[in-house]
């Protein structure tokens, strides 16, 4: 499973979101290392739970942010998060039941998230940045 490198085209220009996305990428890479390296099943399980949990928390933060800025396509964005959340929770459950799905989860996370960031998240980037310029005091948006 190839290592994910952060590239500038993944930046949304919203520091808190880019920070969270980078953390998810780190987790995906850690999961890959664990799967391909000498990690025990328990260690893989730990990273797997962490990446799922962090991704779900990130979705919650992002949705709330989009609500604050009154993003018009929020419902669509939320549905897309929900469908993906169900998928990764299913992987988590399958792994806990003894199925060897860690590598598949890593690939799914990588493919889905990179695509989601490049397409769906970029669609709101401009609006959120404009909103921040208009509403946020200094210090939150670093140019």
């Amino acid at each position, binding site marked *: 499973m190839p290592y994910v490198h952060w590239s500038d085209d993944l930046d949304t220009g919203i*520091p*808190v979101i880019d*920070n*969270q996305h980078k*953390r998810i990428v780190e987790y995906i890479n850690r999961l890959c290392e664990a799967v391909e390296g000498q990690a025990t099943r328990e260690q893989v399980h*730990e990273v797997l*739970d*962490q990446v799922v*949990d*962090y991704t779900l*928390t990130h979705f*919650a*933060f*992002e949705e*709330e*942010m989009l*609500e*604050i800025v009154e993003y018009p396509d929020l419902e669509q964005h939320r549905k897309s998060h929900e469908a993906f959340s169900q998928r990764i929770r299913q992987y988590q459950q399958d792994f806990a039941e003894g199925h060897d799905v860690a590598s598949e989860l890593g690939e799914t996370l990588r493919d889905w998230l990179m695509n989601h960031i490049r397409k769906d998240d970029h669609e709101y980037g401009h609006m959120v940045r404009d*909103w*921040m310029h208009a*509403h*946020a*005091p*200094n*210090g*939150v948006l670093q140019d």
Partner: protein
Amino acid sequence: MAHMEWTSDLDTGIEVIDNQHKRIVDYINELHHAIENSDRDEVGDVINQLIDYTQSHFTFEEEMMEEAGYPFLRAHQRVHGLFIRRVETFKEQFENGEDIARELHTVLKTWLVNHIKHDDADYAELVRQHTGADTAHNRGLFSKLFGR
């Protein structure tokens, strides 16, 4: 499962917040200690204290963000709310006799580090700017919430 050390990359640069985070780290280590001693009563006590303290800390932090005008306060609050619900579920499982203490310990450690580095970091600069001239007020808020 190792003892958790405070490292400088966890500093937000807001003294009152760093002190509260350090206290949470102490609780996490107390939980570790209680688990290693196989002291179920102590594990239960630490879980309760940790939830109480963390809730007070969240309230304090949210008020501080609000005063500083942090624009994504509600998003940050939602993350706090999800975490408290999750820890409350662990607490219920523990009270029902399930052996969740080690898993809880791992979740707490990971969550706290992630949250400090990635979510708290976002409001830190704004709050530092806002409170720079107003630390006496924050001490007042601190004693109001924590009684010290």
